[in-house]
């Protein structure tokens, strides 16, 4: 009983112990809050990526691949609901007569997209695309201003006055000041044989009319892609191949069997493209795999942040170690009389260990509570700070979000608590061990 009694008394009469507790509290709080924001962000990013992706993509198709034959083969799978062939090419978009924008800075990522001149030009059949992705909804997104909306969403890429049309991401349109009906020039190129077995780059310029804006939840997709009619792009790039296809977007009946279906479709595509030479052609990927690198990079950043925050916890632990060591030094005078009254070295150790563990428990408990509360009410806190100071702690528009994302993971909370307890126990053990080894006779011989 004396261990707990003395530990509590020692703690209550030494406000400096609050420093150690505060350190643990802050590190636990930061670990809970920051990681829950990042986890929420990851969920949001995944949702955004999902919203702009087909369930399955078939790509890396050989140049001679027949779109129709492949489409038919894919449709034979019982889980395939619909397919949409695409042409995918690079290009630059600008107003006629304008110089192209400078190339992007090295290391610039396309998280948000649209800040560099190069684009993926997707040649699609609007009706087929609408059957496999959220294409139709992207044109009707509420955030698109009326003057930038597509006039006829049922035929958004139908040529107007003989000029083919292009759909541009909303933010790119706004940033570049494009209006519906504006004329733009798509500059791209293709490799052209010269008859001597050599190939050279042939520049292609397509004059297009802006049909309007599209908007998915994925800013990177919107910024880096434009849509044109597949037939228009085919005539420009592959005039002699009426059945050309570079990618096929697939919609499934049941997404829960995505992995099994992907494997099945992969075998099917290899079979369909087999020319008897045993070469595997074509690559089938589920939406998560296709965007895996991007999603993993965000997850990796979360991992790095965890490491940084654990270092903060270690720093807090050193603060606790310092305060506990100070306390042991101050209380060595008590060790003699405790021993004389019947305490064992183990008992003395437990007194000081109890002090450290109590500080840790209080820090962990308060840190978890504070972390959970601030995570749950983060959006309200952001709004309050914005209202009170004018400072936006988390500008939502940068990440295309409606509110600050947050996902509390019970397993992570447990891990943080366990980690903090383990750290607290380790840094408490050393001063406690020092106290237990203190010779009680040194204290008893006089002060």
């Amino acid at each position: 009983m004396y261990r707990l009694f003395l530990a509590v008394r020692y703690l209550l009469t030494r406000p400096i112990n609050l420093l150690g507790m505060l350190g643990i509290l802050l590190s636990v709080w930061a670990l809970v809050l920051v990681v829950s924001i990042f986890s929420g962000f990851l969920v949001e990013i995944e949702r955004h990526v999902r919203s702009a992706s087909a369930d399955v993509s078939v790509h890396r198709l050989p140049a001679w691949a027949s779109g129709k034959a492949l489409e038919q083969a894919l449709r034979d799978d019982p889980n395939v609901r619909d397919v949409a062939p695409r042409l995918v090419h690079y290009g630059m978009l600008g107003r006629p007569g304008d110089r192209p924008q400078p190339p992007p800075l090295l290391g610039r990522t396309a998280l948000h997209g649209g800040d560099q001149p190069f684009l993926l030009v997707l040649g699609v059949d609007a009706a087929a695309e609408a059957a496999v992705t959220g294409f139709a909804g992207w044109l009707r997104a509420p955030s698109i201003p009326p003057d930038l909306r597509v006039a006829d969403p049922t035929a958004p890429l139908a040529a107007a006055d003989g000029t083919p049309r292009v759909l541009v991401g909303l933010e790119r349109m706004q940033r570049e000041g494009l209006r519906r009906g504006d004329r733009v020039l798509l500059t791209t190129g293709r490799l052209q044989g010269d008859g001597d077995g050599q190939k050279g780059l042939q520049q292609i310029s397509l004059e297009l009319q802006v049909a309007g804006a599209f908007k998915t939840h994925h800013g990177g997709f919107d910024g880096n892609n434009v849509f044109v009619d597949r037939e228009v792009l085919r005539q420009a790039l592959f005039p002699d191949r009426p059945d050309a296809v570079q990618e096929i977007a697939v919609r499934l009946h049941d997404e829960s069997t995505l992995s099994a279906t992907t494997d099945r479709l992969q075998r099917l595509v290899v079979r369909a493209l087999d020319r008897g030479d045993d070469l595997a052609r074509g690559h089938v990927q589920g939406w998560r795999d296709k965007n895996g690198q991007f999603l993993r990079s965000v997850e990796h950043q979360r991992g790095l942040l965890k490491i940084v925050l654990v270092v903060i916890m270690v720093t807090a632990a050193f603060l606790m170690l310092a305060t506990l060591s100070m306390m042991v030094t101050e209380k060595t005078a008590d060790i003699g009389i405790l021993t004389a009254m019947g305490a064992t070295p183990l008992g003395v150790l437990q007194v000081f260990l109890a002090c450290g563990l109590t500080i840790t428990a209080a820090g962990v408990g308060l840190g978890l509570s504070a972390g959970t509360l601030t995570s749950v009410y983060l959006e309200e806190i952001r709004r309050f700070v914005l209202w009170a100071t004018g400072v936006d702690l988390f500008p939502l528009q940068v990440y295309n979000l409606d509110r600050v994302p947050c996902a509390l993971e019970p397993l992570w909370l447990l891990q943080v608590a366990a980690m903090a307890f383990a750290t607290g126990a380790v840094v408490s053990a050393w001063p406690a061990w020092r106290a237990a080894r203190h010779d009680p006779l040194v204290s008893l011989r006089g002060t």
Partner: protein
Amino acid sequence: MNPPVLEALAVTKSYRLGRREIPVLRGVDLAIAQGERVALLGASGAGKSTLLHVLGLLDAPTSGSVRFDGRPVHALPVAERARLRHRHTGFVFQFYHLIPELTALQNVLLAGMMATSTLAWWRGRRAARAAAEALLVQVGLQDRLHHRPAELSGGERQRVAIARALLADPKVVLADEPTGNLDSATAAGVVELMFSIQQQRRLAFLLVTHNEELARRCDRIVRMQDGVVVG
């Protein structure tokens, strides 16, 4: 004569200082009977306090043995020696050694908590508190129960230490110059108190002191010089 409660038989104790061996006790024999009051007299460095620590099982002899109620106890495991100290031995020191964070009552109660589990303490807390209060009343501190050591005089602190030493109802009290830090008037009061309690409870009482006059009030005087008993 009563059989001895506490005995030292041919006890030696030496400390190592670097490569040198410093002998402090050189074959001490001493026996204290139940109800006996013994004064241990000697100059500084004679080995009085070391003998008290060895007899109180706070320190182990280099050779020889310590017996409690006829049983050798000096080589018992640490936990067992701690239990014996708690159950049968009370200590009073020159510098009181009260825990500054605790009130007088809590300092006394702490002695009762030493060998008690939390649950057992919770069940018996009222009785323990009543016993501690009774002891503090007996030593004249009925108005100082909730004062901390810093708010007490030297004499009052020593009275708290005496009450603390008695809470577990020990058979032996070992007092190491208990009046060495008090003025003569206060010291006289503390001595009267200790002796009267010793008589009431028939305690085996070993008093380490420099004070000849105080020693003469004991049943027997044991003189030490250079680590040996000389008379």
